[in-house]
């Protein structure tokens, strides 16, 4: 099956800055995929190259099998991009904006689909309003609508929820999930790791232009060994044997970090020996955020030595 997006040996230099240092990435059709990484890691540069907004220094990208340079017309028809910046054309209303965007893709008589998007994104009562008069959240919805006018099989959202209120965020994700269920491939970048964890099947983590992790969320979470244990004790003192394991002390709670689950027995034994009574105990599994922090901290970047994918 043709991958939705196929990036091969992508390099991008801006002067001396090596923004992308040999990225290889394959996103399968129908996936809900997240690109994660700190600011300046190269996420937007990668998306811009996929979208044809930026030219790669070397390497190639295909969208649904179409090369984004050689077959740019077909590649762009396959792709809908929601840009990070809140951009809009102040000369037009919401509906005009969507009709114009349809036209750019060669679509006439697209009103039925435009009405449907307007309805799904709750823009119906704003359809005749000039773009200038919309709130930031509404402008964001129009950007999403614009990316969908040509029913692209692959949809890229570059930080779509940055600065967006909770209600819109939830509505947006409901809609995007529905699109994914309908067969659209979704690629998003976000700084909210809980969003990525809740929505995506696979993630890639970028650091300084390299992919430092590429896997399913569950594999990534399981890759961090051990767990944390949160304890409330009576009396409220931690046995000295357990002191080395303590990572943080919260009000009335001790949090211990264990390298592996088998250490739990050691913890229990030490508590019994000290005659400490356990009032509360929680075993905390690592989440994507912890994995992210660990991977970003660990990853040693050597020039052009991308992690094999």
């Amino acid at each position: 099956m043709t991958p939705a997006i196929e990036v091969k040996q992508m390099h991008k230099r801006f002067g001396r800055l090596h923004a992308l240092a040999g990225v290889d990435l394959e996103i399968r059709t129908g996936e809900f995929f997240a690109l994660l990484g700190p600011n300046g890691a190269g996420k937007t540069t990668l998306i811009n190259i996929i979208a044809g907004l930026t030219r790669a220094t070397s390497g190639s990208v295909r969208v649904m099998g179409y090369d984004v340079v050689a077959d740019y017309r077909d590649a762009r028809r396959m792709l809908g991009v929601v840009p990070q910046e809140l951009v809009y054309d102040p000369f037009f209303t919401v509906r005009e904006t969507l009709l114009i965007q349809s036209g750019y893709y060669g679509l006439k008589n697209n009103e039925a689909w435009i009405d449907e998007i307007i309805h799904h994104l709750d823009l119906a009562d704003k359809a005749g309003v000039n773009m200038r008069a919309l709130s930031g959240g509404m402008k964001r919805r129009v950007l999403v609508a614009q990316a969908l006018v040509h029913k692209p099989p692959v949809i890229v959202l570059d930080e779509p929820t940055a600065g967006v209120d909770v209600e819109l965020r939830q509505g947006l994700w409901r809609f995007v999930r529905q699109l994914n269920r309908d067969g659209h491939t979704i690629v998003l970048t976000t700084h909210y790791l809980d969003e990525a964890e809740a929505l995506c099947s696979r993630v890639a983590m970028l650091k300084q232009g390299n992919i430092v992790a590429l896997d399913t969320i569950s594999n990534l979470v399981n890759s961090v060994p051990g767990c944390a244990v949160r304890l409330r004790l009576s009396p409220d003192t931690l046995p000295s044997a357990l002191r080395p394991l303590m990572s943080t002390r919260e009000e009335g709670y001790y949090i211990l970090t264990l390298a592996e689950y088998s250490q739990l027995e050691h913890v229990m034994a030490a508590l019994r020996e000290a005659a400490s009574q356990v009032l509360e105990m929680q075993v905390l599994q690592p989440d994507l955020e912890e994995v992210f922090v660990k991977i970003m901290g660990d990853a040693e970047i050597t020039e052009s030595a991308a992690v094999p994918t």
Partner: protein
Amino acid sequence: MTGFLTLLHKELLRFWKVGFQTVFAPMVSTLLYLMIFSHVLEEHVEAYPGVTYTVFLIPGLIMMAMLQNAFANSSSSLIQSKITGNLVFVLLSPLSYQEIFFAYVLASVVRGLAVGLGVYLVTLGFFDLSVTSLPWVFLFALIGSALLGALGIIAGIWAEKFDQLAAFQNFVILPLTFLSGVFYTIHSLPPFWQGLSHLNPFFYVIDGFRYGFFNASDISPYVSLGIVAMCFLAVSWLTLQMLKAGYKIRH
């Protein structure tokens, strides 16, 4: 074709929605030029035998308005789209660079012609200026506006800030139009300045345009047309290369 027509339509709507500023205002300022210069110079100059200075002035002013507005249309549209960021909607679409080029140039031509025609129709109420050769008038109006529309694309792409665009307008476009024989026939100039004027492509646009009204010109309209056409082809080629390479718009 739908993509191209949509972009053209959008570009037309863009200036038409603010027509007061983009069509009516330049008409008024052109008519002001006409009033002032004709009042000051009517007594002193007779450009061609039997043609009063005011009547001589009108075609030049019309063409100047067309050139300046054609340039303003594509350049200001592009720089606004670049600075506000909404050029991304065009760049994301499957529109080819040729389609983008022709849409912007054609919209500029339409604005140029709208302003030119508007000024002409108003002056008809006060002066007796008839067209003797519509094909020449139309041909030079078309190619002059197209040339400046293409130059506007270059300036709009090149400029990163509004003041850079203003510099291009004030130091390139404005001197070339003012020194192109709008206000005089270059035969009245000293030989050195006459020679220099021959290097100004706008001179040929205005001279040829005037021929369509007076059946008289400083040089043959065929020569003028050839020179202007070559300039248009050269500028278009450069513009297309810039768009194709994504110069300053696809980094």
